[in-house]
C-alpha cells in the first residue's frame, strides 16, 4: 500500500492538498451515511417481514441502488488513500528512481483507464434513464449515475494525488509512458484482431500479469486488460463493460461484505472481541498455534452464514488477528491462512456455489449440501497439519496455564459475545433473515450487548468505523466489478466450448479427467472469479463426468475446491486480495506463506478426488 505523501511545500501541491481534503471529507461523509442507511434499510426489511408479516417489496431494490453508490464512492475513498489492493513485491525490489516511476505509473495507468471509460459510463447512465425500476418505479439513472459519478471523482482524486506527489519528473514520465502505451495498443489493434482467441492470452494473461507485477492496482489491471481486449479485438460497445461493473458491484449478496466488515469493527469496539479472544486464549493459548486452529474452526462455523466468503472473513479477522499478532504470529502467515480457509470452506452449506452448481447442472442441491460437509473437514485437517508443522517449535514457556476457575470466569464474561455467531446462525436457520440481511441482526445484537452488557460503546469512533468500512468495501467490490467485466470478455469469446472439448479428449479415463479438471478449474477459478467459472463450465463438464463414471456430487466437490484454490491464490485470485484487504495486511507479505497452505489444500483435494466416499458416503440414494 502506498505511503501518504509528505506535507507538500510549494504552491500547486499545497492547493491540491487543500482541495483533496475538502473532496475527501465530503465523499467520506457520504459513504459513512450510506453504510448506516444500508443497515437501517435491510433491518427494516427483516422487521417488516418477520415481525409484521408485511414485507417491504422495495427494500432490496433500494439497498441495491445504495450499494452501488456505496461501492463507487468507497472506491473513490480507497483511491484517494491509496488503499486499492496491489502487488508491490517487484516494485519494492527495484532501484529507488525506478520505484518512484512505477508508483506514479500505477496511478497514471488507473487514471488512463478512468479517462477511457468515463464517456461510456456517462452514455450508460443516460441509456439507463429509459428504464423504470420495478419496485420503486423510479428512473434507473438514479442507480446508474453512481458509475460516472464515482469514476469522475476517482479521476479528480487520482489527479490530485499526482499533484500532491510533489516531484514533477517521474509523474511527467509516467503520464507520457501511459499515453504512449495506450497509443501503441490502439495502433496495434488491427494487427491484434486476426489473432482471434490468442488475444485472450495476450490480454488476460499478458496484460493482466504485466500490470499486476508493475504494481498497478488489481482492479485497474483487470479493467485495463478488459477494456483493451473488448475495444481493440471485438466490436462490443464499451458501455457493456460499464453494465458489467454495474451488475458485478450491486449484486445484493455482496452487500453482506460491508455489513460484516462493520459488524467486525463493532465487535472490536464494544470489547466483545476481547472477551471472546481471552476466553479462547485461556483454552488454547498454551497449545502451539492454538489460535490458528481457532481460525480454521471459526471459518468452518461461520461459513455458509453470509453467503460471501469475504464477509465471513470480515467477521473473524478483527476478532482473532490483533491477539494472534500480539502472540508473535507473522501477519503474512495470518493472511495466508485466512485466504486458504476461504477455499477450504467453499463446500459448506448453504453455499451459494453449491446452489449455483445445482441450478446450472442436474445435481440435487440437497445432495450437494449433504455431500459438502466432510470434504471441507478433510481440507480443514490438511490445513491443521500445516499449522501444526509451522508452530511446532513455538515457544510457549512464558504463557501461563490458566486454572479452571479462571477459564470459567472468562467464559462467563465472554458468553454474550460467544453467543453472537450462534445468534446469527440461528437467525438464518430459523428463517428470520436471508444470508444478506442477517448481518443487520448481528449488528443490532452487538449494539445492544455493547451498550447494556459490556458498557463500552464509543460513539466518537463510529464515523471513523463507517468510513473505514466504506473504503474497504470500495476496494473489494471494485475488484469484483472489474473481475466480472473480465469474465464477460472471456465468456463472450466462446472459448469454453473449445476448452471443454480439449478436456474431454484427455486420456486416462476417470483419473485423467479428474486430473485435468482440477488443473483447469484452478486456472479458471483464478481468471474467472470463481462462480462464473462454474456457470460457464459446469453444464459442459458435468455430462462428461457422468460419462466417465464420476458421481456428480463427487465431481462437484472436486471442481469447487479446485476453483476455490484458484480464487484464493495469488497473483490473480480475487479472493486473496479480498482477504488481504479485510485483514489489512499487504498482499506481498502473504506470498511467502501461502504456498504451504495451498499445497496442503491441493493434497486434501487429491484425497477428496481419489476417495469418492468422502463426498458421497452420506448420500442416502
Amino acid at each position: 500500500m502506498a505511503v501518504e505523501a509528505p506535507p507538500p511545500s510549494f504552491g500547486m501541491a499545497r492547493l491540491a492538498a487543500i482541495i483533496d481534503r475538502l473532496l475527501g471529507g465530503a465523499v467520506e461523509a457520504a459513504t459513512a451515511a450510506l453504510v448506516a442507511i444500508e443497515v437501517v434499510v435491510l433491518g427494516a426489511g427483516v422487521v417488516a417481514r418477520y415481525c409484521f408479516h408485511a414485507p417491504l417489496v422495495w427494500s432490496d431494490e433500494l439497498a441495491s441502488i445504495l450499494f452501488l453508490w456505496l461501492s463507487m464512492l468507497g472506491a473513490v475513498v480507497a483511491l484517494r488513500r491509496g488503499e486499492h489492493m496491489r502487488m508491490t513485491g517487484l516494485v519494492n525490489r527495484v532501484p529507488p528512481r525506478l520505484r518512484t516511476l512505477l508508483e506514479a505509473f500505477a496511478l497514471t495507468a488507473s487514471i488512463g483507464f478512468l479517462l477511457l471509460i468515463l464517456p461510456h459510463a456517462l452514455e450508460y447512465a443516460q441509456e439507463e434513464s429509459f428504464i423504470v425500476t420495478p419496485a420503486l418505479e423510479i428512473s434507473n439513472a438514479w442507480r446508474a449515475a453512481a458509475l460516472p459519478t464515482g469514476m469522475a471523482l476517482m479521476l479528480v482524486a487520482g489527479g490530485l494525488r499526482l499533484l500532491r506527489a510533489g516531484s514533477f519528473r517521474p509523474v511527467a514520465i509516467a503520464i507520457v509512458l501511459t499515453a504512449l502505451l495506450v497509443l501503441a495498443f490502439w495502433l496495434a489493434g488491427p494487427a491484434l484482431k486476426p489473432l482471434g482467441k490468442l488475444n485472450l492470452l495476450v490480454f488476460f494473461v499478458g496484460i493482466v500479469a504485466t500490470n499486476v507485477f508493475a504494481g498497478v492496482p488489481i482492479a485497474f489491471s483487470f479493467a485495463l486488460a478488459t477494456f483493451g481486449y473488448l475495444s481493440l479485438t471485438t466490436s462490443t460497445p464499451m458501455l457493456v463493460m460499464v453494465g458489467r461493473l454495474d451488475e458485478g458491484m450491486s449484486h445484493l449478496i455482496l452487500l453482506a461484505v460491508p455489513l460484516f466488515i462493520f459488524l467486525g469493527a463493532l465487535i472490536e469496539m464494544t470489547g466483545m472481541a476481547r472477551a471472546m479472544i481471552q476466553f479462547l486464549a485461556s483454552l488454547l493459548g498454551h497449545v502451539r498455534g492454538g489460535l490458528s486452529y481457532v481460525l480454521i474452526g471459526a471459518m468452518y462455523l461461520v461459513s455458509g452464514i453470509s453467503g460471501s466468503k469475504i464477509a465471513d472473513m470480515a467477521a473473524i479477522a478483527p476478532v482473532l488477528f490483533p491477539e494472534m499478532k500480539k502472540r508473535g504470529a507473522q501477519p503474512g502467515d495470518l493472511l495466508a491462512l485466512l485466504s486458504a480457509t476461504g477455499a477450504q470452506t467453499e463446500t459448506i452449506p448453504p453455499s451459494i456455489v453449491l446452489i449455483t452448481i445445482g441450478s446450472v447442472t442436474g445435481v440435487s442441491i440437497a445432495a450437494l449440501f449433504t455431500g459438502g460437509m466432510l470434504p471441507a473437514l478433510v481440507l480443514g485437517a490438511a490445513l491443521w497439519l500445516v499449522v501444526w508443522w509451522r508452530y511446532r517449535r513455538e515457544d510457549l514457556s512464558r504463557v501461563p496455564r490458566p486454572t479452571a476457575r479462571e477459564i470459567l470466569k472468562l467464559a462467563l464474561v465472554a458468553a454474550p459475545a460467544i453467543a453472537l455467531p450462534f445468534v446469527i446462525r440461528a437467525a438464518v436457520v430459523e428463517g428470520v433473515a436471508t444470508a444478506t440481511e442477517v448481518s443487520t441482526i448481528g449488528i443490532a445484537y452487538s449494539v445492544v450487548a455493547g451498550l447494556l452488557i459490556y458498557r463500552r460503546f464509543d460513539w466518537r469512533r463510529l464515523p471513523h468505523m463507517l468510513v473505514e468500512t466504506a473504503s474497504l468495501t470500495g476496494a473489494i467490490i471494485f475488484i469484483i466489478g472489474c473481475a466480472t467485466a473480465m469474465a464477460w470478455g472471456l465468456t463472450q469469446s466462446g472459448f469454453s466450448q473449445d476448452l471443454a472439448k480439449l478436456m474431454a479428449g484427455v486420456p486416462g479415463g476417470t483419473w485423467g479427467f479428474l486430473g485435468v479438471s482440477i488443473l483447469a478449474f484452478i486456472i479458471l477459478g483464478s481468471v474467472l472469479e470463481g462462480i462464473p467459472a462454474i456457470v460457464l463450465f459446469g453444464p459442459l463438464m458435468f455430462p462428461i463426468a457422468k460419462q466417465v463414471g464420476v458421481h456428480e456430487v463427487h465431481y462437484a466437490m472436486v471442481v469447487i475446491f479446485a476453483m476455490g484454490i484458484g480464487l484464493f491464490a495469488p497473483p490473480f485470485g480475487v479472493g486473496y486480495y479480498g482477504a488481504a484487504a479485510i485483514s489489512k495486511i499487504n498482499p506481498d507479505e502473504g506470498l511467502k506463506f501461502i504456498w504451504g497452505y495451498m499445497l496442503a489444500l491441493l493434497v486434501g483435494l487429491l484425497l477428496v478426488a481419489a476417495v469418492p466416499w468422502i463426498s458421497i458416503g452420506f448420500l442416502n440414494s
Partner: protein
Amino acid sequence: AGLPRPARAAEITLKFGNNLPASHPLNIRAAEAAERIARETDGRVKVDIFPNNQLGGDTDMLSQVRSGGIDIFNAGTLVIATLAPISAITGVGFAFANYDQVWSAVDGPLGNLIRAAFAKVGLHTFEKMWDNGFRQITTSNRAIAAPADLARLKIRVPVSPMGIALFQALGASPTSLQFSEVYSALQTKVVDAQENPLAIVETAKLYEVQKFCSLTNHSWDGYHMVFNGRSWRNLPDADKAIVSRAFNEAGLQQRADLRKLNETLRAQLTAKGLAFNETQPEGFQAKLREAGFYQEWQGRFGNEAWSVLEGTVGRLA
C-alpha cells in the same frame, strides 16, 4: 455438438444470451435454429448461444441487447416491461383461460401492439413469442385452493409492479428476493411460497424444499425474442428472412415442447413428492375485481390496449 462445419468462416456472428439452462426446450430449439441458420446461409451467419445467464442477469442482458453487446435476448415479459411497460399486459392475473387465448392474443393484435412499443425503443422483435408457461404456486405449508388460502402467505415474487400488485390484491404478503436466494429462503422458511412455471420449479430444484404445488395458472409468462436494432438493420435482407424464419418456426416448436413438458413434469414432480392440486380461476378473479386490481391496471395500460386484451379474453375489469 453436432454443428455442421460451415463452408467458410462466418462473416456475421450473432450472440444470443438467455437465462435458462442448456437443457430447457428454449435452448434446444434455439440451438436447432442456429444450426439451420448456419446451413441456409452457407455458414455466413453464425449464432452463438450463451445459456444460464453466462453473459449476465436479465436486466443486464436487456441493457446489452439495447447497446449491441449481445444481438439476441429472450426478454421475459416483466423484464422488458421496465423499458416498455405495455409488455406486462400479457401477465395480467387470471386473464388467459388457456393457451388458445394466449397465442391468439400474442400472435395477433395484442402482440403487435407490444412489438410496436419495442420498435420505438430501437429493438427488433421476431413475430412469434416463445413460451415460459403459466405460473403456478408452490408452498411449504398449505395447498392453495381458493383466495382465502393466500391470506398473509409470505410468497416470493419476482420484483415487478404487476406481480406485486397481483398478490397484494389477493391478500398475500409478496416478498422480493433475488432468484439466487430463493432456494435457501424456502428451505429456511424466510418465505413459505414462490410462484413460477413448472419448468423452473424443476430446474431450480425447488421441489426439494416445497410440499405443495397448486396449479393456479395465475399468470402466463413468455419470451419476446428481441434483436438489437442496429445489428438487425446491418443484416442483408436475404439473411434477415432466413434468421426470422428459423427463429419463428423454432418458437412454434418450442411452444409445443413446453406444453408436453408441463404434462410430464406434473408426473415427475409428483414422484419427487410435490402434492398437486387444481384450482378454479373464478374465485380469484372475483377477489381481484373486488380489490380493484383490474381497474387499476386498465388505467395503467390505457383503454386502447386493455380493450384489445379483453377482445381476446372477455371482460375482466
